[in-house]
């Protein structure tokens, strides 16, 4: 086991680079890499106006437009049946609410007439 360690040490020693063998680092490489790291730094947040401008110039993708259209059509069909019914009732059928209102109107008119009549007696 000692021999193994001794051999390991010898091999490590002989695998070392001597001073004249040491490869030289190129400072240009380091500078280039430093610049690339610097580019990763996040820019400070833009102001409200810039955000607004950014929002106004947003690119809308085709699928987003499609999705919005689909949503609009869906909402239209979900809402439209009740609207249509009201229209139909107004034009063709007898509206019970309107009947009741007209009934209540005539009742009011009758009361008014009776009131006037009693006034005229007095």
């Amino acid at each position, binding site marked *: 086991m000692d021999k193994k360690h*001794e051999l390991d040490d010898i091999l490590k020693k002989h695998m070392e*680079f001597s001073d004249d063998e040491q490869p030289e680092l190129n400072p240009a490489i380091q500078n280039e*890499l430093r610049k*690339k790291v610097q580019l990763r730094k996040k820019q400070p947040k833009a102001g409200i106006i810039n955000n607004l401008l950014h929002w106004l110039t947003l690119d809308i993708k085709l699928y987003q437009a499609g999705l919005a259209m689909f949503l609009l059509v869906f909402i239209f069909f979900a809402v439209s049946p009740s609207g249509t019914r009201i229209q139909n009732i107004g034009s063709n059928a007898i509206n019970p609410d309107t009947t009741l209102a007209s009934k209540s109107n005539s009742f009011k008119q009758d009361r008014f007439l009776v009131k006037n009549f009693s006034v005229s007696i007095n």
Partner: protein
Amino acid sequence: MTSKYSILTDGELMHFIQQGEVSAFDELYLRYSRPLLRYFTRMLNYDKEKAEDAFHDLFLKIVEKPEQFDKSKSFKTWIYSSAYNASKNYYKHIEIVKDALEEMKQTEDILDEKFLLTAAAKMDADSFKKSLANVVDALPLEKKTTFILRYQEDRSIVEIAEIMECTEGTVKSRIHYTLKTLSEKLTIYNPLI
């Protein structure tokens, strides 16, 4: 002069590099530039230009895609693993060693460590170093990487296995193979003859 980054771990430095901290990069570069350039120089048979290219590409990966660093691994293992893969691609590309990916045959021979030690003692340091360098240079990629990581970069067997994604047994067997080759090359110095 020590910067505040000098006390940070490699993983922490990678975190700051992701955020664009140049000083964190400087510290990491200081720690790994020389060993990695030495590694590539040896791996690429002392071709300075090619070693520099490989070294540059590796550090470019660190600064451009630091998120690729697997935090579950140690940085040292990750960086040497990337360096190994870079040299592997390079070897594939230029076909320096055609049998680089050849399966290693398990050798049952018993290595005579005593012989190697005596030969090393008998030879002058320069001759031994030269013989060793010649043997290492001529090795296929896998064995060469193993040997360089073990004896030049001082990595443990476990670390090498992790870097090269193989078993510890394979690492030991590759080292054994290289030492056997070295013994054969140094037969002329055999004190018993």
